[in-house]
């Protein structure tokens, strides 16, 4: 509880003694490249294989004369939009971006770079953390949209190559009884997860004490705590919004 209180105070300090808009704009653009663009490859790889494996496993479990083939792509579509793309990719995102944020801030803390900012009269938490949170909130939903597209594409490729489903059946299943609310639901989740990963990882890194060993510990804790927060938020959002 003490840590949670400290986290809330930390978040509130991000909005105090801010620098100019231009400063935040420039920093946020740099962070967008680091957080978004540099995560494209891992997100693409995970998404394609996630879709492919989901297709093959669904086909394996749902094979029967009474179940039409298009159910496979229907399952892939709903699983991807509701859970796999926003949540599983958030865990990957926490592993890649979260550990990077915590490591970077932790190193800055132990090498007195954060103290240097404070001595100059700069609100170090706002200057360093706010652009990361903004970039994360801007870029992660884009990654989720891309991930959903690639997962469904991966499912199509795997399904047609292994001949468990015909291409036309797959497309038919994707369109069958589509609930449009699944898309805003996935996007709402992605905004919440992006905020959680960036803020929790920043919090862990910012308050690192000690040396190189503690920076490693902070990175590990950032990923662990982000993953737990993602799963809890996932459950709460599903309960509230579905």
């Amino acid at each position, binding site marked *: 509880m003490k840590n949670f209180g400290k986290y809330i105070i930390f978040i509130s300090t991000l909005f105090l003694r801010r620098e100019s808009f231009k400063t935040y704009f420039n920093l946020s653009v740099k962070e967008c490249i680091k957080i978004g663009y540099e995560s494209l490859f891992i997100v693409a790889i995970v998404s394609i294989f996630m879709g492919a494996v989901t297709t093959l496993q669904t086909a394996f479990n749902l094979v029967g004369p009474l179940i039409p083939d298009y159910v496979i792509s229907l399952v892939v579509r709903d699983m991807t939009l509701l859970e796999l793309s926003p949540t599983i990719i958030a865990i990957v995102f926490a592993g890649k971006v979260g550990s990077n944020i915590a490591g970077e801030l932790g190193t800055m803390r132990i090498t*007195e*770079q954060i103290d240097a900012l404070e001595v100059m*009269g700069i609100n170090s938490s706002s200057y360093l953390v706010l652009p990361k949170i903004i970039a994360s909130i801007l870029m992660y939903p884009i990654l989720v949209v891309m991930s959903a597209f690639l997962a469904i594409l991966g499912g199509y490729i795997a399904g047609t190559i292994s001949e468990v489903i015909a291409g036309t059946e797959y497309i038919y299943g994707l369109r069958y009884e589509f609930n449009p609310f699944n898309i805003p639901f996935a996007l709402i989740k992605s905004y919440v997860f992006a905020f959680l990963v960036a803020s929790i990882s920043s919090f862990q890194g910012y308050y690192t004490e000690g040396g190189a060993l503690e920076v490693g510990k902070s990175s590990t804790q950032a990923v662990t705590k982000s993953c737990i927060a993602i799963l809890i938020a996932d459950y709460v959002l599903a309960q509230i919004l579905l």
Partner: protein
Amino acid sequence: MIEIKNINKAFNDKQVLFNISGLFEKGKTNLIIGASGTGKSVLLKCLVGLLKPDKGNVLFNDRDFTNGSKKLITEIRREIGMLFQGGALFDSKNVEENVMFPLNILSKLKKAEKIERVNHCLKLVGLENINDKMPSELSGGMKKRVGIARAIVNNSKYLFCDEPNSGLDPLTAIKIDNLIQKLTHELKTTTIVVTHDMNSVMEIGEKIMFIHQGKKLWEGNNKNIFNNKIKELDEFIFSNKLMKKIKP
């Protein structure tokens, strides 16, 4: 001029600083000396606002830094330059960007003017044509010099140095000490140096405060330090064989 009045600081139940008062003069290199773990760095952190004293005040030209308004504290902080023990250069920025950083945040100069100012400060610290180098490509002494250039680039009125020659060879250490003193005289800054190096004490100690177990035990300068009657200070000064040999 910086004045401190009855500074007290404790961490949990452990009292680290006891009623420390003193005056640090403008245009002089003021040294805070003492053995490791005596509270020098804690005092320095209280002076620059990284820690808040439990009791007492820090006054920058009679402006209360400890209990002043947020606006006043920010205003004073923007007059402070600090050299950290390891340099604290930003890893992701090159030398020019590091030195220019305070100007980007705190000044409204044009880009060309900023570059001119950066080059001037790098020249003052004896570093030229290394603008594009990254901190990882610099030696320990060069990092300290870049740190000093960053500390003075914004025409700082107050210069703080935390163990400026730690980790440096004796020759480079003396050069850094002399550079700090030269800049203090030229720029008329109020400079406070925290150190436990006797070479620094003898080289640039125009005003010295000796701290032992969180208490101020002696105040003077490098000319009268050998005439003190304090046992703890004597032990500190004559801790190595060479100094014991020249003990009067």
